[in-house]
């Protein structure tokens, strides 16, 4: 049975494990042969910045793991426009090219269109 599941990732990378464990959960959906969508908002959008060198602090690069998403049945990737704007992050700063950038209203609609939300 396919259900519409949206995973919301709102935390910054590296400083806490939340963002990493959110991505791990997203990758697990493929193991279970389910597709889910991902929404990055608030400090979660910092995961999407180019030029990350996480080896400096002995961590794995989010950029590498995010690049693997197409192999893990992640259906859609969404980014909250206002979160980008507040942080003055432009399209050219982002690792992911195929993401849809959504307004507040579009996100309201997106949330209400799901069967489940996994909050991170």
């Amino acid at each position, binding site marked *: 049975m396919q259900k519409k*599941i949206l995973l919301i990732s709102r935390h910054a990378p590296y400083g806490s*494990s939340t963002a990493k*464990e959110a991505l791990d959960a997203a990758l*697990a959906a493929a*193991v279970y042969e*389910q597709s*889910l969508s991902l929404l990055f908002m608030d400090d979660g959008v910092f995961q999407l910045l180019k030029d990350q060198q996480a080896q400096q602090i002995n961590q794995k690069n989010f950029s590498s793991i995010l690049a693997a998403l197409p192999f893990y049945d992640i259906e859609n990737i969404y980014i909250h426009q206002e979160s980008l704007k507040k942080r003055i992050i432009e399209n050219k700063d982002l690792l992911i090219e195929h993401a849809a950038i959504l307004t507040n209203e579009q996100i309201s609609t997106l949330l209400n269109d799901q069967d*489940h939300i*996994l909050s*991170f």
Partner: protein
Amino acid sequence: MIFSINVQSPPYSTQASYTAYRFCKAVLAQGHQVHRIFFYQDGIYCATRLAAPPQDELNLYDKWQNLAKENEIELVVCIAAALRRGILNLEESIRYQKDAHNLAEGFTLGGLGQLIEAAVNSDRMVTFGN
């Protein structure tokens, strides 16, 4: 209605896993079913059998175990999160050549896929984090 719960918050340092427990109790009291309680991130610390809170304080560890026992609910602890943080069952302690294991009774280690499976097979999925 079938519920599944995702507990991502630690048992003592924040209130959220207690909130999750109270929520589960209320779900059951209303006659609904809890399909699975999945412990992830720092939530996995709920599964230690070595915590020893003072007698006059909340013992959430016991409460989770009793809840599972009385209602035959699956308490699944994410194995990836647990191994990183030092919660192991006997089998994993042997696999990783550790001298002890500390997973409390009533809890089982499981893959993250079980979180997704819980979502697929439940009508409601509620996350408690901090």
